[in-house]
């Protein structure tokens, strides 16, 4: 006979729970977002990090370009970008070159204290695969279906991408393996295509070559921050030689950036402006440049780890989206954008962000953006986290819990008597 109150109590509890889920409160949401943001200290809204590292040279005497790229590879990996999110294009002909006195090793300093080739190197494009065509295909995602996922840049509109290039270049071009060149226009157009295809949130473009600053002069797509090692008509120089390896082991600019990066941890709060502030002709022997006119966030608030780190942002969704109004949760975002009419609002929200909002802004619109199964749980957590509820529902919930517990105890004691 106790079954009846138990059932009624359960129904009451379910009702109150669903009521809570449906309740909307922007302030609470803001508080939660603040909680998550506090974790990273960032105002960026990206949810994944990618890196494209290109060494455009080959041959033994260009050892330093290989170690430039490997140095960057080590750094982004150390700061948390996994190999799956790094596209490394490397001629890779020095580690096992017969001229290498230290087989299987690539060092970036004269004392040979750090072997960049030692641990788990995953080169995605090796040797003659490092071509202008492949680089542009990686950026724009125009791939043959047979290309494995590990060789693709699987970014979306919430991806921050770090693009690093090194090699021999000149005014508005970079030479690829003594064979072909990529021009500043090619890269600018590729970035624009990426923007139109919503393949990035923000790009940090870094290049170390002679007359490097000319390479980013043609960019015209938004949200790109660019820096280069030397001005037009200026050479970039190598930093030092190792007299046993017999060639220069690293370039001055990259060495300088890597030195700075060594002081950065996953939780560092250093901004890119801090990096740019360390640039000086005395250290680098060329005039590095920065181009931030396309970039919408203040450089002081743009963390180095926004690009170098693999810091995953959790996205906070509104519970209204989570309740599920006949929207297929499993749909991938890109498809949803094209197919489902109800999602137009979401697309608009994205556009609003992409066209005028500075990235730090946390508007409620944005919360409506993403509706995937994975993020439903986040919404549930969010609703649990709310402290402010009606006093009646709290009381009802307490009494229902007491009733359920009491009926359970009664039931158990009856069974044990029998």
């Amino acid at each position: 006979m106790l079954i009846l109150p138990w059932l009624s109590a359960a129904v009451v509890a379910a009702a109150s729970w669903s009521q809570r889920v449906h309740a909307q409160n922007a302030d609470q949401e803001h508080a939660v977002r603040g909680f998550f943001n506090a974790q990273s200290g960032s105002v960026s809204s990206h949810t994944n990090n990618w890196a494209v590292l290109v060494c455009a040279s080959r041959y033994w005497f260009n050892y330093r370009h290989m170690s430039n790229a490997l140095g960057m590879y080590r750094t982004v990996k150390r700061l948390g970008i996994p190999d799956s999110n790094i596209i490394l294009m490397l001629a890779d002909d020095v580690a096992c070159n017969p001229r290498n006195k230290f087989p299987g090793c690539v060092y970036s300093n004269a004392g040979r204290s750090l072997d960049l080739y030692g641990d788990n190197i995953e080169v995605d494009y090796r040797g003659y695969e490092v071509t202008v065509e492949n680089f542009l295909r990686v950026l724009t995602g125009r791939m043959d279906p047979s290309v494995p996922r590990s060789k693709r840049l699987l970014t979306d509109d919430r991806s921050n991408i770090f693009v690093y290039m090194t090699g021999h270049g000149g005014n508005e071009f970079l030479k690829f393996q003594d064979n072909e060149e990529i021009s500043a226009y090619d890269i600018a157009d590729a970035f624009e295509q990426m923007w139109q295809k919503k393949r990035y949130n923000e790009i940090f473009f870094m290049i170390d070559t002679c007359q490097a600053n000319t390479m980013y002069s043609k960019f015209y797509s938004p949200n790109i921050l660019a820096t280069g090692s030397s001005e037009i008509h200026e050479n970039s120089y190598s930093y030092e030689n190792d007299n046993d390896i017999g060639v220069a082991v690293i370039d001055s600019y990259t060495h300088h950036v890597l030195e700075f990066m060594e002081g950065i941890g996953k939780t560092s709060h250093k901004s890119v402006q801090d990096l740019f502030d360390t640039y000086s002709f005395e250290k680098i022997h060329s005039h590095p440049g920065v181009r931030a006119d396309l970039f919408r966030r203040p450089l002081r608030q743009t963390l180095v780890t926004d690009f170098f780190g693999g810091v995953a942002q959790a996205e906070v969704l509104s519970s209204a989206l989570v309740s599920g109004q006949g929207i297929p949760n499993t749909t991938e975002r890109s498809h949803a954008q094209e197919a489902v009419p109800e999602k137009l609002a979401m697309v608009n929200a994205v556009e609003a962000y992409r066209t005028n909002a500075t990235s730090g802004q946390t508007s409620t619109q944005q919360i409506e953006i993403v509706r995937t199964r994975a993020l439903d749980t986040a919404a549930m957590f969010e609703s649990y986290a709310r402290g402010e509820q009606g006093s009646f529902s709290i009381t009802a919930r307490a009494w229902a819990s007491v009733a359920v517990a009491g009926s359970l105890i009664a039931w158990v004691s009856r069974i044990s008597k029998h």
Partner: protein
Amino acid sequence: MPPRILRNILAKLKGRGDKNLTRIQRRRALADLAWRTYPRLQLLLFAIGYAWLLTIPSTLHGQRTYIDENALQPGQVNTYWNWADVHRADRYLEQLESMRDRNASSHETATFISNEFRKLGIPASTQDYAFSTTSGTVSGTNAYAVLSSPRASGTEAMVISASRLSLTGEGDGTLNLRGIATVLSLAAYLKGYSLWAKDLVFVVSDGYLDGMQAWISSYHGVTQGNLVAEPLQLSSGVIWTALNIDYPGHSFSHLGVFFEGLNGRLPNQDLINSFQVISRFTGGVPVLVYDHFDQSEFPDRVPDFVPKWLPQGMRRNEATQEYAYRAQNVMRHIGYQARGRASGVHGLLHQFRIDAITLFAVPAQGPHGFHAIGRVVESTLRTLNNLLERLHASFFFYLLVGPATFMKIGAFLPAPVLVGTAMLVGGMGAWAAARWARQGRAQGQAEKREEGRDVPAARWIERPRPVAPALSVIVYTHALGIALFCLCTWPGILAGGNIVATLLFASVALAAGGGSLLARAPAGSTQAPSWMILKSFNLCLASTVISVTSVLNFSLAATLAVFMGLPLSLSAPSRSAAARLTKFTLYALLALGWLLFVPGEAAQALRNWEVLRVWFAPFVCIVYTPLVLQAGVVCLLSP
């Protein structure tokens, strides 16, 4: 619309009135100008050409050498050649010296060397060879070893060589024992490295040049009629570069670089520049061109090469000393290159497109020895090991006027070309002069009277210009040259002493003089005098030879410009028979004097042809001598 000034100039050039008429007038005016000025133009070109030759050693020309190939990276490695390796070299030297003292045979020494290589664990072998020449048989035994690249495929190789005889006095018998000891000890030492991207081939060649010629010919599978050589048992890849070590003295103060190859070929300049940088900065040994000391090293002493007859103030002048120093280097270079001689064993490798030089340890009381030369060679080999393709970036045509100063081809090539052009102008002038003859004054006056109006005092008449007689003389003299060359290759002719040489000289000169009968004009002919046509052809031919040679072998072209330029232009017959004969004799001496005055040189050139395929001897016999003899025939013909 072009600006008015331009239009005015165009109008002036085009002329007003009938287009065709102005064109004909313009052409005539130009032809007239050329006819009137060609002797002066010729003189001017000669003057500039010869003056240019004289300015070559001056500081007007020349620039610092630089490394052009990025891959080389010279002087950037630590060297680990050390006293233990020097000690090993000393031990090898002791053994080699004891073999020299007991007069060990060539074969025994080669076997000893190849055994030493084998003891080091390097595959080694010997090669017997024999050349048969007009002056006898040259035979010997080479020793060589091939150290395979530990980590590369061995499709490319570098050669480190030493000949038994040093280049001192062009192989006068000075032994190169320390060079051989260096190669042996280097082999032991270099085997310890695993970073060779190319095979290392160690060659100890017998004799001075002959051993290497036999070895390198066999290596490339080239057969030579007069060479019997054992096939090589060990082989390697394509040889890109080679260093030849020549260390004849007890110690050395400088390393001299010798670079001229057979037939005037030079190695890529990057090789010399890399060695220069490495020797100076890694080895701490100053570099010389050949064994000529740079006067700037001894500021207080007047160097020997500054002529004694100069006034004292001038001798002490820095500019004079610099000029004399550079002139000495240029003359030495021309001496090797014009004669097509190799300045050392390295020169034999150039014919197979191998860039090679000889490092000559200039004998001195000190301070350097095995320790320095080992480090320099080690570092140079590391640099050559870095090569990804053959040396190609830097110059192949250059004049090295100092260890780190050179002249580009554009700075010296114009000199012989200008002389050649002057000869061409002279030849064309002679051709035009043969066409036209001035008629006598009397006849002209008669005409004047007849026609009763003002005509020029003299008239030009056209003459036919038969070319067959002149051509037959040319063909005849060149055929004579071929006969002369064949005679010279007969055993005993060049070694026959003064009497045979004089006989040869007289007979060839007489035969050439007899050639004048071919171009004798019939008496009272109205044709152009055949000497003019012959001279015209002779000058044009010689000019072509100089111009063509200048881009292949500058030194030879410059020498030809000096010996043929002015003399050939001055050839002309005289009225008196005695003067004609004297002139002919002078030309014959210029053409064939080498038979009488430098018989040793002639024999050497012939030996180089037979053993090393140097083109100089046939070139002189078949091209130079006939051209000068033709000028002699010009003098013999009737004026």
